[in-house]
């Protein structure tokens, strides 16, 4: 499923931007339309006013139609200062009385008898807006309809339209920008739980397969439920696997014991010297196998206890001492100086006796097997408000760059020496289950290498 997929955020942002752009275009078109009709209305009123004034100036003198155009009509039209003005007065005979005789000669003026007629026209190569108004004259010598045509070029209208549209565009652009910003913020905010969930999962201890508890929004709950369901199944599988390993180890132990007994019962005198060597090798390997099986069992036991047994108030000094006795065999190499030291007679911690002992035993065994040349010291004390068991040996130690590796399961720094590497792993499991950790102290020319097991002290106010 390696497919390039854009982020939720960019998908949302893209769609919102598209919708906003579409809306903005729509609104700008509407603004242009309204701006144009507003400009048309405004200037149409002026045009009509001027035309009516001109029509009002028509009079009959000596039986002849005449007009004295009012200056105010032109001043009114002059409110569109850049626009040219054309007019034409038509008498009752349909003849041009005054003005531009060729203005809109083709139109039917009679339509203006009902009400003023506006139309867009072109005059002398320039687009104009034209109005026709009528005036009925009913003097005995002269009766009929007279018409006034007034046309004006459209510069002021266009300018007003542009101004209105321009301002509307500015507003729309501003609003769109605001809406976009708000959307981005909203999207970021609503995507936060996803990020939080991701962080929670990645922060999680790999061993922890308990359900996620997160105050997730409704939309995320199916997702969270799937994760939890998946983890539950994984947890069941892991438990099953652990049980299988424990069972397998247990099953292997019986034939292994029998095998060891058989090897011990071999009559060495009946075996050739070469065979003896082989027998010795078989014995060594069998011992390793026994230890590995034991460790596997104890590992399974520790994990089982970590998830089932409640921590109680226990004495770490006592546990460490028991572990020390268990781990140091009676047949320990007499060249090695072993010592146990406790800073105080009792050190109360919250722990599980069996697990803790197993962990310390494993750490001491590791030191004996892989480290100690002439020194092994176990010390129990308090450091930085936490209980600490320190196992020191004068061996080569573990270089710092390998520290993260050795705490992993089945990992060892000495792959060829038949060690199983489970020891550290068990100790780490136990430390983690107790809310503590396994640490190391680097080997320096004047200091020996130490392994540190640190766990919290018993707190009285704990429930």
């Amino acid at each position: 499923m390696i497919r390039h997929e854009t982020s939720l955020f960019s998908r949302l942002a893209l769609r919102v931007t598209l919708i906003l752009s579409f809306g903005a275009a729509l609104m700008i078109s509407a603004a242009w339309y309204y701006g144009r009709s507003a400009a048309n209305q405004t200037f149409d009123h002026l045009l009509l006013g001027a035309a009516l004034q001109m029509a009002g100036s028509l009079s009959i003198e000596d039986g002849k139609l005449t007009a004295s155009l009012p200056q105010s009509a032109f001043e009114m039209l002059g409110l569109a200062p850049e626009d040219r003005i054309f007019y034409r007065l038509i008498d009752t005979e349909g003849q041009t009385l005054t003005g531009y005789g060729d203005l809109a000669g083709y139109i039917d003026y009679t339509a203006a008898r009902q009400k003023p007629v506006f139309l867009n026209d072109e005059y002398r190569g320039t687009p104009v807006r034209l109005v026709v108004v009528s005036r009925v004259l009913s003097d005995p010598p002269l009766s009929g309809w007279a018409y006034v045509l007034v046309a004006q070029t459209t510069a002021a209208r266009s300018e007003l339209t542009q101004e209105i549209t321009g301002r509307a565009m500015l507003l729309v652009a501003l609003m769109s920008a605001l809406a976009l910003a708000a959307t981005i913020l909203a999207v970021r905010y609503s995507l936060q739980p996803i990020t939080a969930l991701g962080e929670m999962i990645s922060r999680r201890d790999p061993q922890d397969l308990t359900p996620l508890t997160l105050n997730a929004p409704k939309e995320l709950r199916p997702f969270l439920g799937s994760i939890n369901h998946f983890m539950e199944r994984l947890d069941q599988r892991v438990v099953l696997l652990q049980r299988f390993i424990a069972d397998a180890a247990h099953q292997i132990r019986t034939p292994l014991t029998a095998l060891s007994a058989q090897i011990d019962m071999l009559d060495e005198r009946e075996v050739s010297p070469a065979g003896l060597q082989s027998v010795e090798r078989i014995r060594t390997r069998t011992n390793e196998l026994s230890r590995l099986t034991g460790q596997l069992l104890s590992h399974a036991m520790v994990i089982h206890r970590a998830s089932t047994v409640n921590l109680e108030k226990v004495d770490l000094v006592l546990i460490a001492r028991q572990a020390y006795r268990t781990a140091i065999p009676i047949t320990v190499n007499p060249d090695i100086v072993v010592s146990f030291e406790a800073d105080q007679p009792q050190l109360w911690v919250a722990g599980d006796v069996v697990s803790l002992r197993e962990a310390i035993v494993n750490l001491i065994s590791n030191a004996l097997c892989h480290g100690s040349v002439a020194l092994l010291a176990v010390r129990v004390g308090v450091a930085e408000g936490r209980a600490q068991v320190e196992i020191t040996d004068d061996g080569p130690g573990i270089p710092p760059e390998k520290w993260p590796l050795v705490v992993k399961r089945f990992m060892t720094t000495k792959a060829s020496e038949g060690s199983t590497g489970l020891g550290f792993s068990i100790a780490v499991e136990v430390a983690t289950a107790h809310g503590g950790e396994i640490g190391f102290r680097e080997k320096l020319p004047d200091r020996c290498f130490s392994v540190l097991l640190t766990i919290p002290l018993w707190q009285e106010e704990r429930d």
Partner: protein
Amino acid sequence: MRLPVLWAAFGLMMAAPLSASAAEGVTSSFPAPGKESGRLKIIGAMDTTAILPLINGFQAENPGVSVEYSDYVTNDLYEEADAACRRGESIADVLVSSSVDHLVRLANDGCARPHRSALTDPVPDWMQWRNEVYGFTHEPAVLIYHSDFVDPEDVPRSHADLADLLRRKPTVFFRRIGTYDLRASGIGYLLAYLDSQLAPTIYGRLVESMSRVEAGLYCCNSEVLREVEAGRLFIGYNILGSYAYAAQRRNPKLRISVMRDYTHILSRGAMLPKYAGSGDLGGRFLDYLLSPQGKATAEKEGISFPWEDPQVSGITLPPSPLGSGVGRPIRIGPSLLVTQDKLGRDRFIADWTAIMVDSRSLQAGPVWSNYE
């Protein structure tokens, strides 16, 4: 006796106006001071002597341009320009006229070419229209009188004063006042029309009074001024301030009275015709007219009225000339189109003629005019 001659002269004037006056309709050439690189053709309703300083100033800045100037009466200038525009022909590179309503009408009919430059931008709105018609001076329409014949206490300070004076002393001023003949002079018509709009009652009284004293009617400023200078006329009415000022400088006996009730302030207009020949020469001349140098020259040479001189200028321009002061600027814009309505114009002139000319001919005395 003189009547037929007069009417013949009238007819002649209508048919061939260029012959009406020796000073008008004349074309003068001003060769380029330097090597000629262009020819600028100007048609104007300004005396050649009046515009000469501006042409010289322009040529000083553009030594490669030779200028040809034709002096027309305002009405003829409009007719010619309108006819040329309809034919789509080039008549000149620049038109200059004090009758700005003609220029506005030409611009309205699409016969003008817009011109914009750094010099046209500061021109106030009321002194330009559509970037096509520009006013480049502002000068009042004043009254000029000969101080030998008009007593100081009789000097009219308002239009009503003038009407009263003519009524009070009809014998003194009989045939001693001169003004425009509206039939020939576009600027005369414009000023009279605006008088009638601004103060209809006083206008009526004034026309009637002038008719009664048989006012002399002339085509142009210069004619009236010549007569006043010669002492044949005592008062010249609605004379453009710059001409009056120039005349006063020539002859200190002539005095200027700026009316205190209202005074029209007129801008001489300049315009580039739509069909013009020599590239941007017209625009360059227009720019020169609007430039500080051009304005200074116009003031210095009496083309523009010297507002700063309190001796002649009884009024001062208000800070905003459009404010309701004594000075009434004539706004260059579409409202001037009304003066160009043929019907209205014909009626106005007919009414005026009926009072100023016809009523006289019905009476005993002869019509007294300059077209003799």
